[in-house]
């Protein structure tokens, strides 16, 4: 999803957390470019998941194995703990069943990596103060044509994690491709989190 976004700046952050040879599931994989990057940079194996016919075809052309499936229906086709890492790159904000999907990610993956555009970014706040919904590189849609139905900030996400048994292992916040460490919820345009379940890894399937 959101493959229109130029130069997916979260790719490098994600690759930095993927161990060499890891088995990875990329949800909402688009044309498979992240998996291809991880295959080449980290010798990773795994599959993409996408619902769109054209993305499935693009993955095949990209040499990426893809499973056509609707993420909103959950990940029942995948065993618990069957992947080292399940990635959801810039897709969470477009999902209807946010809670269920995050739970599923940490069931199927020993770890999860989730990235999303930060609605608390100062430019977004400014646009909203000016009386309009934010439109930016990370949120490139108008209010009437956006696939993004759940807009949230870093603070919102972290509060969600605390309340849902999700442990934040690492966080990278970016703006203009640069890392942001000062007031990230204000100056970060894109956030990338590495997560697991509070109390350790997901149970391995029987």
């Amino acid at each position, binding site marked *: 999803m959101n493959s229109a976004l130029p130069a997916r700046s979260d790719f490098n952050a994600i690759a930095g957390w993927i161990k060499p040879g890891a*088995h990875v599931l990329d949800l909402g994989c688009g044309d498979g470019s992240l998996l291809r990057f991880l295959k080449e940079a980290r010798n990773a*194996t795994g*599959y993409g998941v996408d619902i769109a*016919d054209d993305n*499935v*075809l693009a*993955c*095949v*052309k990209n*040499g990426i*194995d*893809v*499973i*056509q*499936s609707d993420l909103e229906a959950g990940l029942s*086709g*995948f*065993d618990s703990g*069957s992947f080292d890492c399940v990635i959801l790159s810039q897709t969470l904000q477009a999902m209807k069943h946010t809670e269920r999907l995050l739970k599923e990610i940490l069931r199927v993956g020993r770890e999860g990596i989730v990235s999303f555009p930060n609605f608390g970014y100062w430019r977004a706040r400014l646009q909203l103060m000016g009386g309009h919904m934010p439109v930016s590189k990370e949120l490139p849609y108008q209010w009437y044509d956006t696939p993004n139905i759940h807009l949230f900030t870093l603070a919102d996400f972290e509060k969600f994690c605390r309340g849902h048994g999700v442990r934040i292992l690492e966080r990278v916040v970016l703006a203009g491709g640069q890392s942001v460490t000062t007031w990230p919820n204000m100056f970060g345009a894109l956030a990338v989190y590495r997560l697991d379940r509070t109390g350790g890894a997901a149970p391995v399937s029987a």
Partner: protein
Amino acid sequence: MNAAAPNIADSVGAVTPVDVHFDAPLRLKSGATMPQYDLRYETYGTLNAQRSNAILVCHALNASHHVAGWYASDPRDIGWWDNLIGPGKPVDTNRFFVVGVNNLGGCHGSTGPASVNPATGRPWGADFPVVTVDDWVEAQARLATHLGIERFAAVIGGSLGAMQALQWTMTYPDRVGLALVSAGAPKLSAQNIAFNEVARQAITTDPDFHGGNYYEHGVVPRRGLRLARMLGHITYLSDDAMAEKFGRELRGGEFKFGFDVEFEIESYLRYQGDKFSTYFDANTYLRITKALDYFDPAFEHGGNLSAALKGARSRYLVVSFTSDWRFSPARSREIVKALLDNRLNVTYAEIDAPHGHDAFLMDDPRYHALIRATMESLPQ
């Protein structure tokens, strides 16, 4: 060239089937042995010097070795998967050497129940053994060896053909690069078996069946075959496709309050049944439906399909069609799950097509684009 021939640029053109005789006995899964047998096959394209560009096409219930092209003697007799296979088509015969084969027990030229049993000098009839998907794979493997093909770049099939492609990757994991498993299932459901049983009962209770030895009576259990085929056709189409194609259209425009053909769907089913009963052998139909019923690679692994696929090493393209209720997408997802469990290379596509089970034979652009891209990705 025959002026009536469909001489279009992307056809493999006029083709000629070939028969090959095998003398080495084939031990079947049932325990019976075929002492000797013939297989009829066709090939399109050219086998390269490395013998690495061969693709095997496995047929489903009523099809045959005649997969692409046409016959000079009958230009309207076009191969059953001609829309997929030919020069420049998704399975490109400019690059691949494609093999179609009529399965053992068939009625299109390979040894089957209507063939003469050398032991008796009479048609095999009821004595022809029950054959299984495993047996077909074994016979196909012998044909491959005969043709000098150690490894297929791909084994492809839909429905029962998909089961054979899947079985190939379990029986001969090193002889298959990629399996196309289209509109398949890892085993039949009780409902599937039930439909097959009704079809078989239609045939075996036909007074002309004579316990399977109707050849010597000079008759054919035509009524049974006809009913079996009509039933089959109902399951190949979706409710929507049938409504779209026939609706409640009346041939005469009004109710006749009788039992002749009135609704268009009745006319269609009768036509399909009649046509089928003139060319298909009833004993073959019985055996092929049995092969479907028995297919269950997980059975010998305590029902665990993942365990059955443990030794597999091929790549897979699994395709299902949303309106297929005979082998629904859920059945394909069972296969995909087992492949994922083994971390095998698999791509799964669920095509939103209205045609029901028959969709695997249609030239849906999404379906064909996917097969084309997959075939193009095979190593040279």
